[in-house]
């Protein structure tokens, strides 16, 4: 009679243990049928287990080896990155955002060079405490607010080094977040922009000086015209009074005295004008060989902030290898400045016009032509013949001197300045300047 075989019921049959269970049951069947001793089975199982252990051990060794290689690669990368951070010309610092006082935990060498602080001054301290009392603390408040909103800060500011020396820098501070989006650090970089800033300031100063020269030039011209206009009636008044004095000679002494007062005051007025003229005496132009293209580029550089602030675009179409001209740099720059600002003003009125152009060309072997072409409102035909006249202006705050002075400057250089309306839009002011023949010979 067959004995019932108790199957060891596995708690749970899974794909991995199914095979083992089947094999165990097979063994048990063999044992029960007397073909296999239970001890032998155990031995067999033990051997299998041992084999498995050896394999595991081997795998472990491989893994360890791999890990070592990986570690080495990571180490090298950290080394390279640290080296790179240390040798860059940007001041880099890292702030720990999880510690309450937001200490700086790292700063690269350039940061120390730039700020003049040492590692001791910096590490463990709050970035915002790293400024001298004379620094604008409003800047720092702004940065703190922006960072508190989780945004990056980007801005240029004037800083002080530890020794008090000022420098301009461009500061970037960006939050660094972990995989849950929590800000753990801030990384900051600081670039020294002092040289660039100085250059900007120099350009602004040059422009101011040039504008001042222009204003003084305009004023001198204005006073000169005024002196001429006023001296005519003063001449007449003096002559009339002296004539009356002679007619009344030996008669009415009271009238004689009044006439003398008129004469005295006439001469006083004349003296005031004479002194004003001396005061605003124009400096004599100095003529030297000039490259008109360079002069145009320099003038446009000076005007660039005005041009971009008005949302206008200026294109230069300068002919290569133009021969040099003989001229006064300041005066010719004054002419260009005047024509450019006139064009900008003409374009101000019509919102659709944005573009202007300066073009140079060589009309013949002896003359250079400079054209300032705008897309502005153009010149009303009834004004065309008057625009170069003293005191003529259609601008509410204009003196009416710019174009007349520009024309006299160009003519003093042996050239001619004129204007025409463009076929489509705007006007073109153009002037000629003779080529510096002396130098080319």
């Amino acid at each position: 009679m067959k004995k019932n075989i108790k199957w060891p019921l596995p708690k749970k049959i899974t794909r991995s243990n199914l095979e083992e269970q089947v094999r165990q049951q097979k063994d048990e069947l063999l044992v029960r049928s007397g073909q296999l001793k239970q001890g032998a089975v155990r031995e067999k199982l033990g051997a299998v287990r041992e084999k498995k252990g050896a394999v595991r051990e081997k795998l472990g060794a491989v893994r360890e080896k791999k890990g070592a290689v990986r570690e080495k690669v990571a180490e090298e990368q950290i080394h390279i990155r640290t080296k790179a951070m240390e040798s860059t010309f940007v001041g880099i610092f890292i702030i720990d955002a999880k510690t309450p006082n937001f200490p700086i935990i790292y700063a690269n060498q350039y940061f120390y060079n730039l700020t003049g602080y040492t590692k001791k001054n910096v590490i463990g301290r709050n970035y915002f405490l790293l400024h001298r009392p004379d620094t604008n603390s409003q800047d720092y408040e702004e940065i703190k607010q922006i960072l508190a909103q989780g945004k990056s800060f980007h801005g240029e500011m004037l800083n002080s080094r530890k020794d008090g020396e000022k420098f301009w820098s461009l500061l970037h501070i960006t939050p660094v977040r972990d995989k849950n989006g929590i800000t753990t650090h801030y990384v900051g970089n600081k670039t020294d922009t002092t040289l660039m800033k100085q250059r900007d300031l120099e350009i602004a100063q040059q422009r101011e000086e040039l504008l001042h020269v222009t204003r003084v030039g305009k004023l001198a011209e204005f006073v000169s015209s005024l002196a001429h206009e006023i001296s005519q009636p003063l001449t007449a008044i003096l002559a009339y009074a002296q004539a009356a004095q002679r007619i009344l000679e030996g008669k009415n002494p009271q009238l004689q005295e009044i006439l003398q007062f008129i004469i005295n005051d006439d001469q006083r007025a004349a003296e005031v004008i004479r002194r004003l003229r001396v005061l605003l005496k124009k400096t004599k132009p100095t003529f030297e060989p000039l490259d008109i293209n360079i002069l145009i580029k320099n003038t446009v550089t000076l005007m660039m902030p005005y041009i971009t602030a008005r949302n206008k675009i200026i294109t230069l179409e300068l002919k290569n290898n133009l021969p040099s001209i003989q001229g006064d740099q300041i005066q010719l720059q004054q002419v260009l400045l005047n024509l450019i600002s006139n064009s900008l003003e003409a374009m101000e009125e019509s919102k659709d016009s944005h573009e202007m152009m300066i073009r140079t060309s060589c009309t013949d072997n002896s003359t250079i032509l400079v054209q300032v072409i705008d897309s502005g409102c153009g010149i009303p035909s009834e004004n065309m013949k008057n625009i170069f006249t003293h005191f003529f202006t259609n601008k509410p705050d204009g003196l009416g001197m710019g174009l007349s002075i520009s024309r006299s400057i160009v003519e003093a250089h042996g050239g001619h300045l004129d204007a025409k309306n463009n076929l489509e839009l705007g006007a073109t002011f153009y002037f000629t300047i003779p080529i510096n023949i002396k130098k080319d010979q």
Partner: protein
Amino acid sequence: MSSLIYIVDDDESVCRALKTLLGTYGFEVKVFNSAQSFFDAIPDDEPGCLLLDIHMPGIDGWETQKRILDSGSKRPVIFISAEKKENGIDRAMKLGAVGFLQKPVNGQTLVDLINVASKKTTSDNK
């Protein structure tokens, strides 16, 4: 002795006033508001001293003096201008003028210069 004076100045009031003043000195004065009207009316060989303004529309003072010189006329010319004396006097003298007076001009100074100019022409003509 010639006592005829011509004045060329675009300012009518200046012309009238100088004419009145010189009249009190006994000069006979003819005024013109442009160089062209002067040339049209007065022949080159007609005697008389010219008081000449510089800044005028049309033919200016410098050009007027040049034309007089080119015509071979011996007419004495005195520039009277608002132009600064130091700027104008050299150029005026180079162009053969008798003198240069800056406006506003003192009557006695002008008359003295006119007398010098007249004597000069008289002696030249001798």
